[in-house]
């Protein structure tokens, strides 16, 4: 829109303001109408429009001197009857669509006042169409018709308005400018009370609409390419093209402009055109038309030709044609400024192009499409599905009409099931905001009412878990031709491998692969996979702690899915269900993985996690997917009876941390809570005994079970910020995982129990409950306390006492790390901890500053105090925590 100031008299401004005020009031009143109110008005309007179809068509032709009365009458009928058929059952008031499975509803909100420009080519039909849309959507419209179609449009608006008001529509719902100027349009397009500009017309009107700064639907010029491919039904295609191109003397902007015809059928097609009343121009006649009907400077049509009969155009330019000639066919040899007839021609002149091949034909169609027709309409006649698909791929048009007339086809509802319209969205190619056939839904603001949903949860564990002393005996139940035991040297020396072998059926071929007792490296994984392939193993037994079982999980993954890219599978994710990278599912070997744990901490025998390093490439991979979970877990305490004290403590504290973190996780559920709570109770009771008396079979058994139970909890609820801190700190200072966890644990309990600075988004939790969950754990441990705060404090104190009892270092400073050294490490520690995915299930979202505070609290050690906010004022409510 021009930035030139609008020059209007005070009287004119007052007039325009009055129109807007009236429309605004009508729209405001209209907002109260129900769907039934609206539908009661629409139907009589449609009937009135149908009744006046011929009258309005005659007025339009008389005033504009464009088009064919009979065709305009049909357009008016399509604009009413066909549009009504589409809109009659559509919900446009209140709730218009419901998605119960997504807990989502869509609610209609009217736009208010629409400023609508209508074209000279389809004046009355466009008005009828827009009036019906506006009433159906409870909007008021100020119409601005093309100046040369003012009277017929006014009459169409009047017909619709009087019927609508008679049936209950608010007065002032439609108005029609008369004797208006471009400045009037500019003034209204910029008016604050105009909610939407709907401009159907020439490029100028559309550009002005989009330049106004207002939301706009601007739909205008096209240049429809047609591909008449050799497999097409030629007689049908020729009839369709003539029908379309001559309809209302070619004034519909979706009508055919250039037909690209395969060489093999070119002559036959032209003969058909001629036989059905078309005049195929010779070179000279074509040259005359090119000079006269298109402005050579702009490429725009000469107004004198628009909507005129073929015979009149021929007469005007001096070409002799038969009296009833319908169409002038102009062969062209190229597209663009050198070939003016390759532009849009809203009159019965149709260019044709002889294409040597499909490739050339498609290229010429693309050229026509890009020569003023982007986003609008294109047509293909073919019985070759591949051709149709290719055409649809390469042509940029909102409507790609197949084996039917372009103009009537694009209108929708006659030759196809597209939405009936008189406004063709042309997408960004045409400078428009939509490629749709504009319809009632473009006259609405659609509001989404999104109800809170509960994320689907899960509880996944290995198919079989065997536990208690000598549970390994259960191996006898598993048939296998070839079994590979993956373990490490110390376990073999302790005789554990033999213990396992004794339980495997004798007919099974058993081989053993010894791997280092350390976090598995990719080289080890590759060797293991080679062994699995060499022995064609159908069963893998992982005998060891977390690293051995992790190695076996990854070996199995690569054995089953040789193409799996471990680095890609380790890509970070926020929600397991929405992760970008999916694990493969089509197994190659269908091997069974049996995990026998020889420590009481990681619980790797039941978890879906595995960690490995690639020293060559210098990265660490953490894999997480339920497909990694072993098929069978054996929790046999015979392997932990000789576990050294240090390992007992480290793994035991790791187990406690798993249970505490899973218990307060945002993914916690009653299923995981039952496991987490029981594991906490078992650790507090049996870890001190196992520590004091390593040979106590009951304590070892219960701690071994506790580790598995806690792992079941965190496999489904995940861990929290404690693990994020411990991962970062342990890796930097070489501190074992259990010890690193222990240093953070009391501080993290106090931190999670306090009112968070930032809550973690969690649709499954209706309230912040971490403090109450801790209090519930304190109750289960019988720690006493009357308020939630007291109970949390008692849990912290009990945890500290347990750690003291186990002789765990209670502060980072006790490890001999100087304050200066730690201070220097803090920025990196905070960054690494914040990048760690573990905290994403923590109940409290840790700020980096809080991570730093937690690290310093762990550095200084003892004495975190529970401060649980409001809960301290209340008596215990722990039983409602779940």
């Amino acid at each position: 829109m021009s930035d030139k100031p609008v020059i209007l008299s005070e009287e004119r401004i007052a007039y325009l303001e009055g129109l807007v005020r009236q429309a605004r009031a009508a729209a405001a009143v209209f907002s109260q109408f129900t769907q039934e109110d609206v539908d009661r008005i629409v139907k009589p309007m449609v009937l009135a429009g149908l009744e006046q179809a011929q009258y309005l068509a005659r007025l339009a032709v008389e005033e504009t001197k464009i088009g064919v009365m009979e065709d305009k009458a049909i357009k008016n009928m399509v604009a009413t009857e066909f549009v009504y058929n589409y809109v009659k059952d559509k919900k446009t008031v209140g709730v218009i669509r419901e998605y119960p499975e997504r807990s989502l509803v869509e609610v209609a909100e009217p736009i208010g006042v629409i400023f609508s420009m209508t074209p000279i080519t389809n004046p009355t039909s466009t008005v009828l169409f827009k009036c019906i849309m506006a009433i159906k959507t409870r909007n008021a419209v100020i119409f601005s018709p093309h100046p040369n179609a003012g009277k017929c449009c006014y009459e169409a608006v009047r017909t619709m308005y009087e019927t609508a008001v008679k049936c209950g529509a608010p007065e002032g719902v439609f108005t029609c400018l008369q004797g208006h100027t471009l400045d009037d349009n500019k003034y209204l397009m910029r008016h604050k009370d105009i909610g939407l500009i709907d401009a159907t017309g020439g490029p100028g009107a559309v550009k002005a609409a989009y330049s106004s700064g207002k939301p706009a639907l601007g739909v205008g010029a096209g240049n429809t390419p047609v591909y008449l491919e050799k497999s097409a039904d030629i007689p049908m295609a020729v009839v369709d093209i003539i029908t379309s191109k001559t309809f209302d003397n070619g004034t519909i902007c979706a009508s055919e402009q250039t037909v690209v015809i395969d060489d093999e059928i070119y002559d036959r097609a032209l003969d058909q055109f001629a036989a059905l009343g078309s005049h195929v121009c010779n070179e000279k006649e074509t040259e005359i038309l090119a000079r006269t009907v298109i402005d050579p400077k702009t490429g725009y049509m000469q107004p004198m030709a628009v909507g005129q009969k073929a015979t009149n155009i021929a007469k005007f330019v001096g070409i002799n044609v038969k009296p009833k000639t319908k169409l002038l066919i102009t062969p062209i040899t190229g597209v663009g400024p050198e070939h003016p007839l390759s532009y849009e021609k809203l009159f019965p002149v149709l260019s044709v192009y002889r294409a040597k091949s499909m490739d050339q034909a498609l290229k010429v169609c693309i050229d026509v499409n890009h020569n003023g027709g982007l986003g609008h309409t294109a047509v293909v006649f073919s019985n070759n599905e591949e051709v149709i698909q290719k055409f649809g791929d390469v042509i940029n048009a909102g409507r790609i009409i197949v084996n039917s007339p372009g103009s009537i086809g694009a209108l929708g509802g006659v030759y196809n099931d597209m939405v009936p319209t008189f406004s063709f969205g042309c997408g960004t190619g045409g400078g428009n905001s939509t490629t749709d056939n504009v319809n009632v839904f473009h006259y609405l603001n659609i509001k989404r009412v999104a109800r809170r949903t509960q994320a689907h949860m899960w509880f996944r564990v290995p198919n079989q878990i065997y536990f208690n002393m000598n549970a390994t005996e259960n191996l006898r139940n598993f048939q296998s031709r070839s079994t590979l035991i993956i373990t490490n040297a110390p376990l073999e020396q302790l005789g554990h491998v033999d213990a396992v072998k004794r339980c495997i059926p004798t007919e099974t071929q058993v081989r053993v692969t010894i791997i280092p007792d350390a976090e598995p490296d990719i080289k080890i994984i590759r060797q293991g996979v080679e062994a699995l392939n060499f022995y064609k193993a159908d069963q893998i037994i992982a005998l060891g702690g977390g690293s051995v079982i992790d190695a076996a999980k990854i070996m199995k993954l690569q054995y089953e899915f040789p193409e799996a890219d471990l680095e890609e599978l380790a890509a970070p994710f926020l929600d397991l269900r929405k992760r970008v990278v999916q694990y493969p599912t089509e197994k190659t070997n269908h091997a069974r993985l049996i995990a026998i744990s020889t420590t009481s901490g990681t619980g790797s025998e039941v978890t879906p996690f595995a960690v490995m390093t690639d020293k060559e490439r210098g990265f660490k991979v953490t894999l997480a997917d339920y497909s990694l979970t072993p098929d069978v877990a054996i929790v046999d305490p015979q392997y932990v009876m000789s576990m050294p004290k240090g390992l007992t403590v480290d793994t035991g504290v790791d187990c406690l941390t798993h249970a505490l973190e899973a218990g307060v996780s945002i993914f916690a559920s009653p299923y995981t809570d039952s496991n987490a709570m029981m594991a906490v109770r078992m650790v507090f009771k049996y870890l001190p005994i196992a520590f004091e008396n390593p040979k106590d079979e009951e304590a070892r058994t219960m701690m071994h079970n506790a580790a598995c139970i806690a792992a079941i909890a965190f496999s489904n609820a995940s861990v929290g910020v404690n693990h994020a801190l411990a991962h970062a700190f342990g890796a930097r200072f070489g501190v074992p995982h259990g010890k690193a966890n222990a240093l953070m644990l009391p501080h993290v309990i106090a931190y999670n129990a306090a009112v968070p600075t930032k809550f973690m988004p969690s649709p499954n939790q209706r309230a912040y409950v971490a403090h109450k969950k801790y209090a519930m754990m304190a109750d289960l441990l019988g720690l006493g306390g009357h308020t939630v705060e007291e109970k949390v404090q008692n849990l912290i104190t009990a945890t500290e006492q347990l750690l003291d009892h186990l002789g765990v270092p209670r502060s980072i400073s006790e490890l001999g790390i100087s304050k200066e050294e730690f201070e220097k490490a803090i920025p990196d520690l905070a960054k690494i901890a914040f990048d760690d995915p573990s905290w994403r299930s923590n109940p409290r979202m840790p700020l980096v500053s809080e991570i730093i505070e937690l690290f310093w609290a762990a550095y200084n050690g003892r004495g975190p105090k529970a401060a649980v906010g409001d809960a301290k004022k209340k008596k215990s409510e722990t039983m409602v925590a779940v």
Partner: protein
Amino acid sequence: MTTVVNWHKVDGKRVAQSLQEARENLNSSEVQLLLDFSEVRRIDPAGLHAVEDLASAAEAKSVKVGLREVNVDVYKVLKLARLTSRFLFEN
């Protein structure tokens, strides 16, 4: 100082006429006019026009107009018609 409040119940079945009556009774000595909309379920163009006229007349006479118990739908109509800023609303 005593606040003079003139109370007028708007007839829900004849909103425009009822508001017209209220407007005719506007007295510049009044400090406030209180219109009870509790019976107004819906407002038509004439009613809306009458609301606007009343607002203009009250402003000319420096009378504050309060609307009481306006239902949500009618309130939205007044909002869309840009009239809410010209009244005080009470529930």
